[in-house]
């Protein structure tokens, strides 16, 4: 499904650790040291209590398929039809992604099915976190 040419992120100082993480095959979230909220997307403070005391924490990579559409129009880097999905991580936060190693059909993409992260390098700087049906 993935080809050259898809839009790639341009990390900022506040998000660089996340993209360094995916490059090292780690999915990194942040956790508030004061109120224990685990959150995404990255920012250097807690979105619940505004504490600046936050730690980077490695996610399990386990998630469930929360919702999606199957896009039928052409987008650079994608061959339609392909699913644009949101997964809910075991740790709580949700993120947009694609589901790989899976037919891009409503029959194959069942809400709440377990999925797991896979890391797909795009270039020297960027590796994207994608998800596939969980094995076992």
């Amino acid at each position, binding site marked *: 499904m993935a080809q050259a040419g898809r839009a*790639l992120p341009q990390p900022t100082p506040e998000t660089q650790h996340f993209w360094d993480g995916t490059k090292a095959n780690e999915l990194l979230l942040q956790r508030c040291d004061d109120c224990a909220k685990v959150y995404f997307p990255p920012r250097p403070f807690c979105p619940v209590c505004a504490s600046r005391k936050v730690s980077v924490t490695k996610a399990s990579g386990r998630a469930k398929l929360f919702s999606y559409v199957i896009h039928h129009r052409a987008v650079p880097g994608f061959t339609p039809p392909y699913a*644009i999905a949101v997964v809910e991580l075991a740790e709580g936060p949700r993120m947009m992604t694609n589901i790989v190693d899976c037919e891009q059909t409503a029959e194959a993409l069942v809400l709440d099915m377990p999925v797991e992260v896979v890391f797909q390098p795009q270039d020297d700087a960027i590796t994207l976190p994608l998800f596939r049906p969980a094995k076992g």
Partner: protein
Amino acid sequence: MPHNTVAVVGAAETTKLGVIPDLSQIGLHADAAINAMADCGLKPKDIDGIATANETPVQLAHYLGITPTWIDGTSVGGCSFMIHVRHAAAAIESGLAKTILITHGESGKSRIGNPPRSVPPSSLAGQFEQPFGPMGPPSMFTIPVLRYMKTYGVTVEQIAQVCVVQREWAAKNPRATFRNPITTDDVLNSRMIAYPFRLLMCCLVTDGGGALILTSAERARDFPTKPVYILGTGESAETPMVSQMEDFTSSRAFRVAGPTAFKEAGIAHKDVDHLMIYDAFAHLPLYGLEDLGFLPKGEAAAFIAGRNTAPGGSLPLNTNGGGLSYMHSGMYGMYALQESVRQIRGVAPAQIPGAKISVCHGVGGMFAASGTIIFSNQAP
């Protein structure tokens, strides 16, 4: 904010709607503004406040020859104009301006003179959504729906009824883009855009504009038009990333803006004669009906399929045909406001007999922001 102290006295859309190859975006703003000024007998020198979105109010003030004492450039998507109405009402009440013009124009189809639509790759959406292949609202706004459908057991056939019923309303509007009747099968057999959304479940893409002129209720009595009073207003915002909505079955921005407006208006849902809910896509009236408290969660699809919002129903909804059939330039909120004003003036093509209270609810971005305005023709 005290209610019923500000009124709409001028309201108009662009002379043409649909495909307008002879006007740029700012020209559409100006065409609508001049029509609205003519509607209530004002000239640019009479306007002392201006609000607009997607262009700066500086551009419009200069282009139209207005010297403002109050400007508002709130630009948060298609509900920006509801929010302008709210801000304008507060500004008039507090004496910051006496006569405020709100303009919208958008060359959504012809794309003449529009600022480019792009997501910076360093933004959070650019980093954490764009790499996964979305292309604009049809592939983003629609993402929460499968979760909604699973949660409440709603079917795509039921959602298709939103499109069928709104086309019935559009058929009564000579200016509606699509007026021919459609069936559930027509909707379900139209081209797949982003499963489960098919073409007829997505809004139109057209050119057009609209403008409103507001002043104090006291001054409104001296205008030639029938005053449309602002009874209640609300606004809110949630997230610029649809993937980060707190609840995929409900919009937090709706749940804040709607009840705020109802509380301010001091009305109950049964008092509402006419309702507009911004329908960029067929699921939005479902979220709106439920989040504004008209129906319990999960019941809106059956309510619409039961023809309660159709012509002759108890809660007439999107009586111009909506973004699905009337027109949708990209920031549709202004057209919803125009239809509410027409209904409350009693001059809508599909007029609801005796309509006294109209609720007009808008969304901005993909569930990013929201604004709600409640209109009435009852003098304070």
